[in-house]
C-alpha cells in the first residue's frame, strides 16, 4: 500500500524538483504517445526538443518566441504571488497589440526615434487598460477575477477581429483581414544582425530583472507577498490591499500589453488576427512551472518556446498535428500539480500509524469570498 504522509513543513528541495519531475513525466508520456501513434519515439523527441535549436537560426527563433511568453509570465508571477488569479494575459496581450497597432498606423508616415516609444507605450497602456477593468471590478464590486479576465479574453479577441476586418484593415490589402505594414520607425530594431531577434527580448530580460528587484528588494514587493500569503495579516499591518491589487494587476497587464505590441512591431510588422498562438495561456503554465521566481520563469519560458517550435517541427517532418504543443502544455501543468503534492507530503510504502497534530491544509488556498 502506498500512502501519503504529511511532512509537517514544506520541502524546499521538492519545490524545485517538482517542475523537473513534471517535465520528465511529460517527456515519458510523450514517448509512450509516439509509440502508440507508430512514430519512432526517439526520433520524435529529437525532432521536438533538439532539431528546432540545432543551429544559430533556431536559437534566434527561440528568443523571438520566448520574449512574449516571458513578458506575460513575469507579470503573472507578481499577481499570482498576491493570490490574484489573472487568467487574462492573453486578452491583455491582444489589447496591447491592438492599441500599439492603432498608434503605429496613425504614425505610419512619421519618422524619427520618438515613434517607437510612443507605439510601445500605447501597447503597454492597452494591456493596463484591459487589466485595469478587471482590477476595478475586483476591488470595487468584488467580482471574481478568474471569470472576468477569461470573459475579457474572448471580448478582446472579438474586438481585435472587428478591428482587422473593419477600421484598421489595409484599404489596399485586397480585402484581407490585415492592417497596412507599419512604417520603419515603428518597428523594433533587430538586436542581432541577420536574425529576427529583436529588441523585445532585451525588454523582456529587463522586465525579469526589474520584477526580481521589485519582489525581492522592495517594500512594495514584500507587501504583495504578504498579501498573498495572508490577506488578514496584510490588512492588520496596514498594507493598502486595494492599492496593491491595482498595482499588481496593472503591472501584469502592462507587461502582457508590451508582449502584444512587441509582437506586432517585432516579428509580425502589422496587425493580423493571429497575433498570439495562446502565449497568454502558456504564460500561466510558465509562471507555475517557474515557481513564480524570475529565474525559474526564464527557464520555463525557454522550454515553452521550444515546445511551440517543436510542435511546428513535428508537424512539418513527422506529420503530427500542431495541437501537440497544447497537449504537452496541459500535461506539463497536470504533472506539475500532481508532483507538487510531494512538497507537503512524502510517499510511504507500508504506512505506519503517524500522529498528526497540525491541521493539514498546506496547499489549500482561498478562492472566493
Amino acid at each position, binding site marked *: 500500500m502506498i500512502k501519503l504522509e504529511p511532512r509537517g513543513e514544506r520541502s524546499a528541495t521538492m519545490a524545485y524538483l517538482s517542475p523537473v519531475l513534471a517535465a520528465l513525466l511529460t517527456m515519458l508520456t510523450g514517448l509512450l504517445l509516439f509509440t502508440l501513434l507508430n512514430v519512432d519515439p526517439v526520433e520524435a523527441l529529437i525532432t521536438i526538443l533538439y532539431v528546432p535549436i540545432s543551429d544559430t537560426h533556431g536559437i534566434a527563433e527561440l528568443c523571438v518566441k520566448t520574449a512574449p511568453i516571458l513578458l506575460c509570465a513575469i507579470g503573472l508571477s507578481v499577481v499570482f504571488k498576491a493570490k490574484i488569479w489573472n487568467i487574462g494575459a492573453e486578452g491583455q496581450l491582444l489589447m496591447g497589440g491592438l492599441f500599439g497597432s492603432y498608434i503605429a498606423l496613425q504614425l505610419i508616415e512619421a519618422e524619427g526615434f520618438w515613434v517607437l516609444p510612443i507605439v510601445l507605450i500605447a501597447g503597454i497602456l492597452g494591456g493596463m487598460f484591459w487589466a485595469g477593468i478587471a482590477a476595478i471590478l475586483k476591488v470595487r464590486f468584488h467580482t471574481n477575477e478568474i471569470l472576468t479576465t477569461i470573459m475579457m479574453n474572448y471580448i478582446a479577441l*472579438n474586438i481585435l477581429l472587428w478591428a482587422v476586418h473593419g477600421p484598421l484593415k489595409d484599404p489596399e490589402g485586397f480585402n484581407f483581414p490585415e492592417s497596412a505594414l507599419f512604417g520603419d520607425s515603428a518597428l523594433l530594431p533587430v538586436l542581432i544582425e541577420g536574425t529576427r531577434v529583436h529588441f523585445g527580448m532585451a525588454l523582456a530580460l529587463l522586465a525579469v530583472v526589474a520584477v526580481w528587484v521589485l519582489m525581492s528588494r522592495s517594500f512594495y514587493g514584500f507587501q504583495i507577498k504578504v498579501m498573498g500569503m495572508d490577506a488578514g495579516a496584510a490588512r492588520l499591518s496596514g498594507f493598502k490591499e486595494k492599492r496593491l491589487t491595482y498595482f499588481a494587476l496593472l503591472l501584469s497587464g502592462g507587461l502582457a500589453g508590451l508582449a502584444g505590441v512587441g509582437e506586432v512591431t517585432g516579428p509580425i510588422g502589422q496587425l493580423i488576427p493571429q497575433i498570439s498562438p495562446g502565449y497568454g495561456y502558456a504564460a500561466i503554465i510558465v509562471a507555475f512551472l517557474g515557481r513564480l521566481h524570475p529565474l525559474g520563469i526564464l527557464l520555463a519560458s525557454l522550454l515553452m518556446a521550444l515546445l511551440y517550435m517543436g510542435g511546428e517541427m513535428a508537424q512539418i517532418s513527422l506529420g503530427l*498535428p500542431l495541437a501537440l504543443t497544447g497537449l504537452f502544455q496541459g500535461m506539463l501543468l497536470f504533472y506539475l500539480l500532481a508532483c507538487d503534492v510531494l512538497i507537503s507530503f512524502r510517499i510511504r510504502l507500508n504506512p505506519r500509524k503517524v500522529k498528526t497534530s497540525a491541521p493539514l491544509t498546506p496547499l489549500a488556498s482561498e478562492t472566493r469570498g
Partner: protein
Amino acid sequence: MDIDLITNILYAMIRTGTPLLIVALGELVCEKSGVLNLGQEGMMLMGAVVGFIVTLLSGSLLLGFILAMVAGVLMSLIFGLITMELSANQVATGLALTIFGTGLSAFIGSEFVGKPIEGLDPVFIPVLTDLPIIGRMLFGQDLIVYLSFILFGAVYWFINHSRPGLVLKAVGENPHAANAIGLPVFKTRYLAIIFGGAMAGLAGGYLSLAYTPLWAENMSAGRGWIALALVVFASWKAERVLLGAWLFGLASILHLVFQGLGFAVSPNLLAILPYLATVVVLVILSSNQTRSRLVAPMSLGNPFHARG
C-alpha cells in the same frame, strides 16, 4: 416584428441555451458538494470531439452521445484524483483540465476538422408543435433539448427534495461536520464531480452532434466558462440556472434578431454580447458581498483532508 421571427428567435434561444443549461446543471451539483471545477471548458471540448469521432466512424448518434459523456467523466476523474487524493488546489487543477482538454481535443480531432455528419433531427410532437409562438420553442426541438428539460427537473428535485440531495448540500456547506456525523464526504464529492463531467461531456456532444454538426478546434468558445458564471448568476439555484441559460442563449443569438430587424452591426462586435453580459451579471451579483457569501456553498473550493 412578425410572429415568425419571434417564433424563430424563441426556438433558437432554447437551442442555444441548451448546452449552457446542461453544463451549468452539472457544475451546479458539483459546486453544491463544495468542489469548484474550472475544467468545464476542457471537458466539453473532449465530449465534443469524442462524440463527433464516434458518430462519424460508427454512424450512431446514440453511441456518440454516450461516449461523449464517458469522455467527460474520464476527464473529471483526472480532476477528482488530483484534487481529492493529492489535495491539489482546485482552481489550478481546473485550469489545467481546461488547458489539457483544449490541447488533447485539438490533437485527436485534427484529422476530423470540417468532416460532415448527419446531425440530430428535431422531433415534432403532434398538435403541441403547432401551437403558436411557443410550439416550436418547447415542442419542436431535438431529443437532447427535451432531455435537458428532464435533467433540469431531476436536478431541481434532487437538490431541493431528496435525501441524497441533502447529503450533497451538507457536504458542500461543512464537510467536517458532515464527516463527523458519518456522511460519506469523499464519495459524495466524487459522485458530484463525475456528474459534472458527464454533463459537460453531454453538452460538448450536443455542440458537435446537434447544434453545429461538425468538429472545429475550440468550438465550445467559452461556453464552459459562461456556465461557471451562470451558476454564480443563479445563486446556486437550479430554477435560476434554467432561466439564466436561456437568457444567455438569447444573448448569443442577438445577431439573428438584429438581422431580422434590418440592422447591420459587425458580427464580431455582436459576438461579444454573451461575454459582456456575463461580466455585467457577475458585477451586479457580486457587488453585494454579504449576499454572495451567504448563497455560495460554504466550503466551495476548499479541499477536505480528514480521512482514515
